[in-house]
């Protein structure tokens, strides 16, 4: 797409493996605890969902995870992290109604909040609540932090606030954030797959194919839709120039060793 090879597929794994090898420092003593809580609740939410548990509880637990992550960013008292946290809060407020609507619509369609109920249905819930599916597809881009909506935290410093929420997080703490992001990806794609499951066991294959297609669509959106601002409508801008503008910004919160 950009005429280049790019990093290997396992690059996020290499990054995390490296981050856990780095020195353990943080700007304060609570940041790591908040991030650990965020990771823990993301894992619990995934566990609830994939064990066929209560979808509403899963939604609340994953929101709690997001809130812990926002608190972790606010606790660092860095201006960049605070701006990132404020943006993240706005994003959570904007997508959360749709997520709750999804849970309610799921109840309307299947007669239960239990995810395992989908395997008792005669037809997948997409047949009745396809509009909700479109809504979830729309907020999925925000939840997966893909390009037009990666303004609170991005792998690159696109959003002009260094690394946003993770600016002051480093080493193993940043590694936990990355793992939390993987867990969230798996959970949210599970929500997508849930729409296509019904009593026939082979429907799992259908769901997996749809999930892969949706994930590819998200990556396609990520690469094709740069953030647009005002009159400067630049769709498909390469990733180069932003780095130059961002590189001089050195955060000033000292580390505590």
């Amino acid at each position: 797409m950009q005429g280049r090879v790019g990093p290997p597929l396992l690059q996020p794994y290499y990054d995390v493996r490296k981050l856990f090898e780095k020195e353990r420092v943080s700007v304060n003593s609570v940041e790591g605890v908040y991030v650990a809580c965020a990771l823990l609740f993301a894992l619990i939410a995934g566990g609830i969902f994939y064990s066929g548990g209560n979808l509403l509880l899963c939604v609340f637990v994953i929101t709690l995870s997001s809130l812990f992550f926002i608190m972790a960013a606010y606790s660092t008292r860095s201006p960049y992290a605070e701006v990132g946290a404020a943006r993240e809060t706005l994003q959570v407020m904007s997508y959360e109604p749709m997520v709750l609507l999804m849970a309610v619509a799921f109840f309307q369609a299947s007669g239960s909040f239990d995810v395992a109920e989908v395997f008792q249905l005669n037809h997948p819930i997409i047949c009745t609540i396809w509009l909700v599916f479109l809504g979830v597809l729309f907020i999925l881009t925000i939840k997966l932090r893909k390009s037009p909506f990666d303004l609170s935290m991005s792998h690159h410093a696109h959003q002009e606030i260094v690394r946003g929420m993770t600016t002051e997080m480093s080493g193993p703490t940043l590694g936990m954030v990355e793992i939390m992001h993987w867990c969230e990806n798996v959970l949210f794609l599970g929500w997508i797959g849930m729409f296509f499951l019904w009593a026939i066991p082979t429907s799992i294959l259908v769901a997996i194919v749809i999930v892969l297609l949706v994930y590819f669509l998200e990556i396609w959106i990520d690469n094709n839709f740069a953030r647009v601002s005002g009159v400067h409508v630049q769709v498909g801008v390469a990733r180069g120039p932003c780095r130059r503008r961002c590189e001089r910004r050195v955060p000033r919160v000292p580390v505590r060793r």
Partner: protein
Amino acid sequence: MAFASKSPWVIHYDGSSCNGCDIEVLATLCPGFDGERFGVVNTGNPKHADIFLVTGSVNEQNIGVVREIYDQMLEPKVVVACGICACTGGVFHDCYNVIGGVDKAIPVDVYAPAAPCARSRSSTPWWPAWRSSTRSRRPWPLPRREREK
């Protein structure tokens, strides 16, 4: 440290120089040369960086900044002095405010004493040699804008 070799995140600081090395470094990190093939990411954040890439010499004004960035980086970390100015002060070594190479401020691990500005491309030992070799043996097609030239 073994795992770091597959994801070296770089922070780049230009001390004081003619900006030749500065521009070359940024050109290398851009999609044209595609450093991300090797996991290289140009972070603007010393707390995430593994490699501190300094171009240009250390002077009275920036010695504090260089030390501050170095202190904020987490172990294990590597400092690369890129270009002759960063190694010894180069042509600016006897300037009234220049202290010298980066090693006057922080410990340097790798010296890369060749500057793109100092000589013509053919004779400069390290950087343009690497550059031209990457260009000629490029295993993927050039970006469209370069092909059309």
